């Protein structure tokens, strides 16, 4: 079973992201982290096929998390989706340049999120 990590500090938003992804055709396992720090703690313990992260979070921001993941050999290949309220073009550009695979602005369309996630999960599969 493929496994997805959701990093988001708002409980409601986290729950929404999780329930959107639980409706994927193929069953996925969803792990939730309520902060960047928690994500850092969880990452070494499990292997993930995809990560969805928010940008504005209290401890470390999503860009910092993306940067960390891309510079760590162990996680560098994991597809990353940023879902953020931050509509700023610069942040979007930064996110993508740091190595995020997709950037979605809240409020997100669950179907679109599922499409993006499915494509990324499949794309990774083909590469191997």
């Amino acid at each position, binding site marked *: 079973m493929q496994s997805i990590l959701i990093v988001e500090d708002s409980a409601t938003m986290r729950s929404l992201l999780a329930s959107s992804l639980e409706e994927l055709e193929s069953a996925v396992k969803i792990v939730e982290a309520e902060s*960047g*720090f928690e994500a*850092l*703690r969880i990452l*070494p313990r499990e292997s993930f096929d995809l990560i969805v992260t928010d*940008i*504005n979070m209290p*401890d*470390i*921001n999503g*860009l*910092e*998390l*993306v*940067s*960390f993941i891309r*510079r*760590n*050999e*162990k996680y560098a290949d994991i597809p990353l989706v940023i879902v953020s309220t*931050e509509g*700023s073009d*610069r*942040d979007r550009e*930064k996110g993508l*340049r*740091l190595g995020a695979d997709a950037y979605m602005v809240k409020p997100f369309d669950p179907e679109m999120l599922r499409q993006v996630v499915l494509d990324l999960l499949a794309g990774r599969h083909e590469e191997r």
Partner: protein
Amino acid sequence: MAAEKSNRKSQGSDAKAEKTKAKENHEFVTEAEEILERMFEDLSDLQEQRNGAGEINPDLVNQIFRSAHTLKGLAGMFGLDTIGHLAHRFEDILDGLRLGRISFNSPAALLLDEGLALLAILMTQLEHGDGSDAQAAQAFIEQIDAAIDASAPQRTDELDALDIDSSLLRALTEYEEHRLRESIHRGRNIGLVDSVFEISAFEEGLSELSSAVREVGEVVSTLPSPGDAPESEIRFSLLVATDIDAGELRERLDYPDTIVQSVWNVSGAAGSTSATVDDAMPVDPNGSAGEAPLVVDGSDGASSEESTDADSLASSLSWSNPGGASELESLRSISETVRVDIRKLDELMNLVGDLVIQRNAISGLATRLATDSQTAKIGAELAKTSKNLDRKLKELQSRVLDVRMVPLRQIFEKLSRVNRRLRRDLGKEIELEFSGADTELDKLIVEQLVDPLVHIVRNSLDHAIESAEERLAAGKPEAGRIRINAVQRGNHIVIEVEDDGRGMDVEAIRVRAIENGMISEDEALTRGELLNLAFEAGLSTRDEVSSISGRGVGMDIVRSNLAEMGGMVELASTEGRGTTVTITLPITLAIIQALIVRTGTERFAIPINSVLETMAVEPDEIGRSEGREVLNLRGEPLLLRRLGEEFEIEGASPEERQFAVVLGMGEQRLGLLVDRLEGQRDAVIKPIKGPIQSIRGISGATELGDHGAILVIDVSAIVGDAVRRWEAA
């Protein structure tokens, strides 16, 4: 007033619409006025800060931004486009200021005051029903647009001058970038603090480091990086803006594995002198700052108290005297202990739990393979391997458990100290006797047990034990006596605190409880029920609040503290003779072996240490005695109870062959009849969360790895109830 004016202007059929409109405008103005007032105030504060030498408070800018945003929304709701557009431009300017795209001295920023004045005029016109001056507003909006363009970033990129790895800059949000630029503008020094932490427990150390930084400056950004050993370590780079120089910062952040570099100082030189603070230091700041550090003893004999002291001595030496490495060496060789954060052990325990669940799955597979004739051979081999794995896992489990277990002696020593001190203060002579000091309990439980136990003993010392004169008059020895006894019973520890004091006055409790409205006057309560009222909040039988036990922690807190750990507390007291408080606690919150049984559609887990044996029982083997079902077990009658009846389970099949699970609790025996036995599993008992706090006969639930919960049977309750009913009959 507004209504009058609009009436005068209105004519014919438009009158009504005009009137509504005026009313709406009035509504808008009332609300908008408040916002405008706040903006005036904030803007004048901003003006002051801009003129003064001080720094502009970013929160103030954010606040004006929010006001403009609210005003825009409000205007939109009332369909007031001109005001809406103007507020929107305001928002643009403030957003630019907030993110540093526009400077405070730029033409656009200077238009803020004028714009606000225009907004005020537009609103007065609206209130008075005069046609608003849309043209003036439009002209002004154009002026703002031009100014914003002119104010566009004259960005001399300060950030390029910083001596920082670009990966750090790339991960800054736009707002953080701005804070960084702003700090440079303000003549602050920018430092980079690099520190490496254990990945499993980085948060505490990091938050300690961050708060140390916040005492002297601002943490602009916290960037995690893989450590040199990415599996176990994580590095954090903190970008810090501060007024103190790098040398001073370095002194303040004197932590192990921490490097402070200057990436920008006021003179402009980006020095990269770095100093490592004694990399070889053995003491982990996480450990020394952590809660409830646990001492894991490598040499079996040494008392753990001693080694704690040796360790903290070592750490204090190393912190105050970084050069004293040789002293450190010698201390290290004496004590072969490692301080471990108990949370690390929790993680280890969880991992073991996960492994156990995986092993359950493997043995399930082995059984399936073994039943198919084609794969029987592989199945048998797999079963054998699984058994070996099982043995090793059990060993691992008990070793990890061992590490968590500490003797009660630690608490007893603490109680002795409390007694010595109180003896002086109270002028009472009291002997404290202990037994069972070697009884071991989970470290976490011991930690949480200290306060309730100290409280119970204090209560006895303070209230229960009489003065020497009173005691002599009552024919008791002059010195009071408190005996504390700990014994292990199965998976539980029982701790009794017994005093020979005056005992509890049950009548006084009743009177007090009636006064407090806890019971009614004619309520008939047994002696035990009355005694246990002492655990309810707001009941104390002594009026005075003494400095000794009147510390705000009543017996009600004692009870709830113990209940949190899955324990219970009971009182027994004989007036004039003394009181006994009995605490019952689980030894550990960890894994037990459970027998899984099925009746009808439902499964239950029974802790295996209460199961004496199991057997198949044919319907005709079941006899009756005194109205109850019994089984002849090797010549002795065994009382039977059907699980299906006990829990009213549908679909139980009593007319078929059943299995008897023979349960033993002390001297009592009970045969529990179930439909099927489904094997043994390791189970982690968890409390059931929700509105129904406790269910007679159920002690908790466990997960079986397949998403479902399965209830764990409380053997002592089931056996006790059945035997009591039998004896009563």
